[in-house]
């Protein structure tokens, strides 16, 4: 084993260690959420994942972005086969260990090159859409600062990685043509052969330098990128899969019936219940916590996973009737706020233990009441989301907190509640008039 193999092993180890640590941290944060049972209907869940994540079914509703994304996505997945070879070469010091596959290998390498080129092209187009065309959903207020930078960094990263890959291929081909030792003839080079003139007249040593430099840059870049994921919206490339698997399968209009409320209402309505009896199980039963959600740990883990999976694409916001008519509400911002607050809360929990309060909350410090009350519960956001995120459920849970814990609904809604309670209708009509229409002309 040579020194370079050792260095490679070390890099791989360090990158995996830090990535693993970050994944554990994100998982821990997600698990700070309340429990929700999504272990049912596993067949339907697999199908949903296959259709929505693997099959990108909701991406293509926007044909341009959808098509470009499929290029990047397919390119990425397939080019990873090449990364496997790179890792093996790096570990045991071989050159193109899969070359024994002959013609099939050439076919593979040839397709990788074409894909790499398409990915590069798609990423450049993505950058143009964001920075030159300034498509509205990419330049809204909540994207200012880090989210915008993050989006561009990802695209630059991809472009640089793909360029390094193609340059490495070109240098490799030049070396193969020059008959350098170690560089066995293998592969086909539909794109990188165009780069050959670059190496004209260079010495073998110089080209080997370039080839090795690109090789290291490519693989170290991938390892670095891996570690960038958990800090970025690009984490979606992993989380899109579990996120669609665990997504809501009920009709969109079905809102959950809160179990904690159900038991109380049943008690209240049961004529046999003794109103003065001590609440039987209350003592040892688990603390049901507050009604609704004030902070991230009042949300359930699916909602928190949603927040980490969000790609910040803004499709939800661009379909939201409240947002389209100039209200403050933006479902994408709801997801971004939830994630940012969860990161902050998670850091605080790591330092101070599970019950640590840091004096902040998702409500008010991140999401304002005005945003919450602007929602029409129309489900346009959940319909639009390409990875089945549900911003509406978070809005609803926060409204529940406002109404049931703080009695802080807008006045008109409180009047509506009173009417429903007293007259069985949201307006101030006496219940006895309910059938009047029958006798009117």
């Amino acid at each position, binding site marked *: 084993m040579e020194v370079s193999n050792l260095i490679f092993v070390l890099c791989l180890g360090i990158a995996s260690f830090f990535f693993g640590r970050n994944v554990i941290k994100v998982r821990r944060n997600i698990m700070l959420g309340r429990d929700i049972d999504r272990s049912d209907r596993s067949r339907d869940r697999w199908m949903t994942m296959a259709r929505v994540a693997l099959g990108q079914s909701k991406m293509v509703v926007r044909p341009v972005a959808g098509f470009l994304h499929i290029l990047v996505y397919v390119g990425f997945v397939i080019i990873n086969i090449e990364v496997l070879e790179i890792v093996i070469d790096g570990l045991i010091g071989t050159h193109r260990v899969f070359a024994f596959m002959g013609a099939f290998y050439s076919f593979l390498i040839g397709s990788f090159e074409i894909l790499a080129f398409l990915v590069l092209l798609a990423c450049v187009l993505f950058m143009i859409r964001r920075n030159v065309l300034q498509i509205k959903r990419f330049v809204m207020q909540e994207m200012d600062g880090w989210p915008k930078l993050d989006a561009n960094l990802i695209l630059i990263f991809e472009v640089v990685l793909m360029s390094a890959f193609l340059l490495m291929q070109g240098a490799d081909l030049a070396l193969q043509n020059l008959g350098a030792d170690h560089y066995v003839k293998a592969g086909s080079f539909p794109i990188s052969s165009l780069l050959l003139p670059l190496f004209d007249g260079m010495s073998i040593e110089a080209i080997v330098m370039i080839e090795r430099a690109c090789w290291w840059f490519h693989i170290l870049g991938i390892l670095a990128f891996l570690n960038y994921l958990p800090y970025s919206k690009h984490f979606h490339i992993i989380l899109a899969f579990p996120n669609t698997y665990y997504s809501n399968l009920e009709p969109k*209009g079905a809102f959950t019936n809160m179990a904690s409320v159900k038991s109380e209402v049943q008690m209240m309505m049961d004529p046999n219940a003794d109103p003065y009896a001590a609440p039987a199980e209350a003592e040892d039963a688990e603390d049901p916590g507050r009604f609704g959600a004030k902070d991230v740990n009042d949300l359930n883990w699916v909602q928190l996973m949603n927040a980490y999976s969000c790609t910040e694409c803004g499709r939800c916001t661009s379909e939201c009737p409240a947002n389209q008519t100039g209200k403050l509400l933006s479902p994408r911002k709801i997801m971004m706020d939830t994630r940012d607050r969860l990161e902050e809360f998670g850091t605080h929990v790591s330092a101070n233990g599970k019950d640590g309060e840091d004096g902040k909350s998702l409500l008010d410090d991140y999401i304002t009441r005005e945003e919450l009350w602007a929602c029409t519960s129309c489900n346009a956001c959940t319909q639009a989301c390409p990875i089945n995120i549900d911003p509406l459920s978070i809005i609803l849970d926060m409204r529940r907190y406002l109404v049931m814990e703080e009695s802080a609904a807008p006045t008109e809604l409180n009047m509506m509640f009173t009417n429903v309670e007293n007259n069985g209708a949201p307006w101030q009509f006496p219940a006895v008039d309910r059938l009047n229409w029958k006798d009117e002309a």
Partner: protein
Amino acid sequence: MAEMMAKGEQPDVLFWVGCAGSFDDRAKKITKAFVKILNHLDYKFAVLGTEESCSGDPAKRAGNEFLFQMQAMANIEVMNAYEVKKIVTTCPHCFNTIKNEYPELGGLYDVMHHTQLLQSLIDEGRLTVEGGDYKGKKITFHDPCYLGRANEVYEAPRTLINNLDAELVEMKRCKSRGFCCGAGGAQMFKEPEKGQKDVNIERTEEALKIQPDFIATGCPFCNTMMTDGVKNKEKEEEVKVLDIAEMIATAKDL
């Protein structure tokens, strides 16, 4: 319902009228139109009358889960006592709530939106519809969120419009990408948050852009919102907002 039970009869369907359909002057017209169609067909139906109470939808969407469950359980108690099996309603909000949220609380019914029932009556050959005043007219359908996206009923109302021999023209945002009228989520009962425009105006503008003769709705709240929108644009002479049940009833001269 009470009367029928007293006679020892069971209706074929319970017509859940809903609060808007019972109290709101505009929505009452939809109720009456639908009842006229059912009577015309001698369809055996009943209503709960004063025993009906708000389904709880606005309370639930506003976050008042307590009030919702109280309403739901009280309604379920009444309907289970009458052994109700099948329900039809002209309100997509009641439709959604009873269909999707009542079962877990003990209310298991077969729930239909009125456009679905009318559609099935046409399929069975019991109801025939001709164009009448609507023949060849341009009609656009505004998808109610709680019928469309929430429950994926997109075709029944459209088939009915086609049965009127009318020209169905779609707005740009329709079906699963339909744009809300602005009433859902309890917005009906409060002033909107501040913004550039009201949601119903945005939607009305979109509808008017295709210059329809009629805007068809399937929800009393959408109907109010769109009617207000059309008034706001001073187009109430040229464009009428009608529920599909009203269209069928007038086409049949009922």
